[in-house]
Structure formats: C-alpha cells, structure tokens
C-alpha cells in the first residue's frame, strides 16, 4: 500500500523523542520532508541529525510552545523552511500532575494551545494548497480513569471534541482531521520508563491489565498516526482512533 507521503511536508511539534520522534522517523522514511521542535536544544539537534539518514529535507529548532510569540515565529519558520505544509502532528505535552492549580495552566498551554496554535498556523496554508492532514494526539486517560482526576486527562479530552469539529469545518477545503488516543507507551526516557524504575508495583499492576502482557512501543502508535496523516487514509476524517492493544475496558461503539 502506498501511503503517498513522498515529497509531502510535515510538521511534528514535540518530535524529538518518543511517539513524536517515531512519527517524524516514519514520515522521513516514507519520503516526507519534516520539521520538528521540542524545548531541548540538544535533543532537537540529535533528532534532526538522526532523521537526516533518510535523505529528505529535515529541519528543527528548539521552541517552547508555551511562549506564544516564539512558537508562532517557529511555525512560520517551519512552513517557510519546508516551503509549505501538508501534514501536522502537534503532540507537545506537559504530562500529568495533581495538587497545584498550575498543572491546569501547564496542560492548557502545552497540550491544548500547543496544537491550537499550530492548527491556526497551518490551516490557511493547507486551504490554499487545497488539502492537508492533521492528527491530534489525545490519550486513553481521556476515556478511562487514570492517575486520579487531573488536568492532563481533562485537557486531552478537549482535543477529541475539537478535532471532530475541525474536521467538519475544514472538510470543504480538503483538510482531514483525526485524533489518536494511545494507551501506555514505553520507551527509554519516557514517562513509563521512569514509572517502571520508581514505582515498580504500579507498573506491574498496569502490565497485568494489558491484554497482550506488555506496554506499547512508540512506533506502534506512530504507524497509526502516520497512516491517518497519509493519502492512504483519504476517507478518514473526524475519526478518533484508540491505539492501546485493547487496554481500555470500554467498548468503543
């Protein structure tokens, strides 16, 4: 199956590690030009260097999505460097946390406004190009209780609602919008790597709840994201895809 990504231009916000990096890597491998960002200067530099091996045009610059002006400038820069944009995967996240009101601001700024500002920057360009594909990344924690009532879960849930309505609004311009909700995904330096090391019992209890007896890997989510981002998913829009190895208990009617 041809994904039709050859020569496409993709922006991955939060693409220096984990799921975001895996998305950027598959995109590059499939022939797309890619722009990535994250806060960490070294991690962006390393990721850009590693992605270069697929021979497409890969650019990156550190940027904090919480700094609206910097972030807008970064988005303009990325669109210019790629000479357009066909694919957007904004998955910056501030992670979880409870006990301080500040966590709500963090989740709002990073998990919600990170994608919102990116979408606003790309929509006019995609409209002009008569097409584009956006994949938002929520979480199964928006669907089923995880880690207590927290800003992260609630803010991520808002992306599911917003994503569907974006799809309705921009379908006429050939822009597709989908949402992917991953279950627990483990990789070196990721949250679950730390949980495994620091909260062994909790980690084991999660493992026991996994029908396949393991956590997911970044590329297993990234493949689903890239599929939705690609031409191969031309009739998928407004959908919400749970990628969790059957981890959630509910039936997704």
């Amino acid at each position: 199956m041809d994904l039709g990504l050859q020569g496409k231009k993709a922006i991955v916000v939060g693409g220096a590690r984990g799921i975001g990096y895996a998305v950027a890597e598959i995109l590059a491998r499939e022939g797309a030009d890619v722009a990535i960002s994250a806060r960490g200067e070294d991690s962006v530099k390393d990721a850009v260097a590693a992605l270069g091996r697929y021979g497409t045009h890969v650019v990156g610059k550190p940027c904090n999505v919480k700094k609206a002006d910097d972030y807008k400038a970064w988005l303009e820069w990325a669109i210019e460097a790629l000479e357009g944009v066909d694919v957007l995967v904004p998955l910056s996240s501030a992670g979880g946390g409870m006990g301080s009101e500040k966590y709500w601001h963090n989740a709002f700024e990073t998990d919600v406004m990170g994608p919102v500002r990116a979408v606003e920057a790309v929509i006019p360009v995609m409209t002009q190009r008569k097409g584009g594909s956006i994949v938002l990344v929520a979480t199964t924690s928006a669907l089923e209780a995880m880690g207590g009532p927290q800003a992260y879960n609630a803010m991520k849930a808002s992306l599911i609602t917003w994503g569907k309505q974006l799809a309705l609004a921009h379908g006429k311009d050939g822009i597709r919008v989908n949402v992917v909700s991953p279950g627990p995904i483990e990789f070196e330096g990721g949250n679950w790597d730390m949980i495994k090391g620091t909260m062994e019992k909790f980690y084991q209890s999660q493992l026991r709840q996994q029908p396949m007896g393991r956590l997911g890997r970044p590329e297993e989510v990234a493949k689903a994201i890239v599929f939705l981002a690609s031409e191969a998913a031309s009739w998928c829009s407004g959908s919400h895809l749970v990628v969790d190895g059957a981890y959630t208990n509910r039936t997704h009617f």
Partner: protein
Amino acid sequence: MDRPVTHKPVTWDTSKMDVKRVVDVIRVTPETNTSRTPVDKAPDPELGHDVIPAARYYSPEFMMLEWERIWTKVWLLGGRADDIPEPGDYICTEIGKESVLIVRQHDGSLRCFPNVCLHRGNRLRPEGIGNAQAFRCMYHHWTYGLDGKIERLPDLCTFPQGGPPGMTLPSLPVTEWNSFVWFSLNPDVEPFDDYIAPLKDHLEPYHPERMAWKRDVTVEWDCNWKASVDAFNETYHVQGIHPQLQWYLDDVNVQIDCYERHNRYLIPFAAISPRVAMPSTIPPAIEEIMRHAGMDPAEYEGRVSDIRRDVQLFKRKHGKAQGKDYSALNDDQLTDDYHYMIFPNVALNVHADDIMMFRQRPHASDPNKMLYDVWVFELVPEGQPWPERVKHRRFKHGERSIGQVLDQDAYNLPTVQAGMKSESFPGLWIGEQELRIRHFHKVLDDYIYGPGGKQEGDL
C-alpha cells in the same frame, strides 16, 4: 610555574561504566567553597586489590579481636546530648556485652559508668533514657549517687571487708560534641579531639543542635555489624537494589575521601543517575525535594537536569525567610548527601535540613547478629516549637517496614551473611566504587594488628 591542580572529585572513568549518559556535575570546588566543611578530594590511599577474607564477618576469634582491640579501645557514640539536659538525666546504652550509664551531673558535666552493680553484678538500669536522683540497684538496694559514689549500702556492718574500693563505680571517659555524647570503655583512650579529627570542621557547620529527633529505631539484624557498615559505604548497589533512586541521585559521580580512620563520600541529590535516560517529567521523589525547599514543581520551567542547581539557589535565597540558616553550608550541601563514616560504627547522611544516621552495634556474643540503630533528626526552623521527642522502638528484621530504601538495604543482609560462610567464598572482591569498604578494613587492621602489623595468615 605551578599550575593549580584541577579539582577531580571522581576518580573512575564514568564514560566506560554501564551508563547511558556522561554527566558533568556542577560542583563547589575548593576555590569556591564557602563552608568550613572542606570539599577537597583527599588523595586515594593505596590499599591494593586483595580479597577481604569473608571469615572476618563470622569468625568468633575475629569477633574477640575486635572486642579487645577496637570496641574496648575507641570512642563510641552514646546518644544525643539534648536527651539529658537536667541533672540526673541519663542515657543507658549497650555495646556488645557491656552497658554504660551516661549521667548529667549537678554541675552540668557528664559522667559515664559501667551499668553494673558492684555487689553481685546486677544491671542498674535497662537500656533507654531516664532521670534518676540516685541509681538504686533493684536486688539489694545498693544505691549510687549521680557521681557514681555508693550513697547507701544496706547493712554495711555485715561486710567485714568493707565496701568495694573507693566506694564508687569506676568512671569511664565521656564527652559531648556537636550535640552528641561519646564515651569509651578504655580509661586511657586518646583525647576525643584527636580521635574525631578531621571531622570537626566537616560536621559542625551542619549544626545538628538545631535539629530535633524525628525517628529512633533499633532493628535486630541477622548479619555481622560490618556487613551493615559496608552496605552504606558504597553507591554501587543503587543500580542493584535501589533502582528507584536512579531518579533521585547520581550514584556514579561520587567523590570518595578517606582520612586517617574515618571516611566519607559526596553524592549529588536531586539528580538523575547517568545509568538511566534523562526523563521528560520531574520524578516524584525530586518533586518532594523541591516542595520541601518551598518550590512548586508545577511552576518549574527549567530542565530536569537543572533542578539540583536551582534548588540550591532557591534555598540560598529563601532559607532565611523560612527560619533556616544555611550560612555555614556551601551550595552543594543544600542538596547533596555528604555521607560520613565515623570509625568504627557510625554512618551519617548529613543534609542541610536533616541528618539520617545509623549506629551499627555488634551482638554481645554472636558474630552473625547485630543491632542497627536508625536515628533521624530534622531542622527545626527558627521560631517554631521544638517537637516532642519521638519514642524509641525496637523490633526484629522484617517485623516492620523501616521505609522503602532501608528495607531494600536490609533485605539482602541475611543472605549476604549466609553466603559469606560458604566454603567456596574466599572473601569480598572489591572495586574502586567500594574504596571506603577497603579503607574501613585497613583501619580495622591498624587497630587489630597495629599499623602495618598484619602478617601472612592473619585474618
């Protein structure tokens, strides 16, 4: 021209170890140090690479040598001075088969006596702290004053030989230092200041007298006391039994300093071990450090790798307003674990806001058993009431939890003790990260055989 020697606190090549990253730790140097506590790297002693014989951990003969040449010769930790502020307050503490009374006198000074009645040998008091106007033996009511003199000997006229010589309990050396009391079973022990050198400069800046009891626990462990000493004198085991601490401290970039008989290491806290990937979110245990300092981790905008330094700066800036006077400490001391071993049996984790220390005592007769005392003290901010003293609790290994980390430390020790007795185990195969263990055994040798006096065939 002489060039300044660069400060090289870590002697091994961390890049070749089982690590994921090479980390350059920001440290206070001898030039930038603002504390009386030195940060200078002491030259590593040349102690060779020999196996340390396992029999030292279970041989009754070696235990006897330790008793004769160490326990009865050196200064020993007795307790906390603020437990005995008033005349008549006493600490009764045991070491091996001996028990002593450390008693506050009417003039405020301390005296120390063997806790044994001169009549037929009864113990005068059980272990613990208390207050007495006089020590009356429960058996025949011989009664001793706070100064040890026999005040009453019922029916003295029925002892034609009179009372025991001088009509007094023998006195043992005792002193107070840095809020703790110290005693010796050796009447001719060297001056305490000579014994404790060079640690006065190291430990006084922590002002333990501003800290109050937080925990006072004694656990009976089924291992030799030295197995416990060893367990706290290296960070090599963090990757083995304390995996969670790799998201709390840097077990690889550790400075070791060996002095004449004591030693220490300095462990960066609020740091991520080079053995694990740098996490994206702040580990919960480091969030705790931040909250304790008065920071809100949710507000923190820096990188995880910057937290240690930022906690130091925050404490430096806000400590005073929180009633915490950090002026005698350098910046590293505001986060890191300066971990001291006072020969032979005291391990202290000293921190700006607390001290967690262990006293490791031999069993009276069995080399395979010991007493593990956990003492924790916490800084009482100025203007806050002094908390009530916690109660002492004593139990056997495994009966209760002593906290996740110490449970992990304790878990192995009985199997270490059992394994050491195997005929196929000649002894400890010690690496550079365990230099303090080798140094400890060298000091044991100095006491037991005399400096350089260990002969071929000696244990």
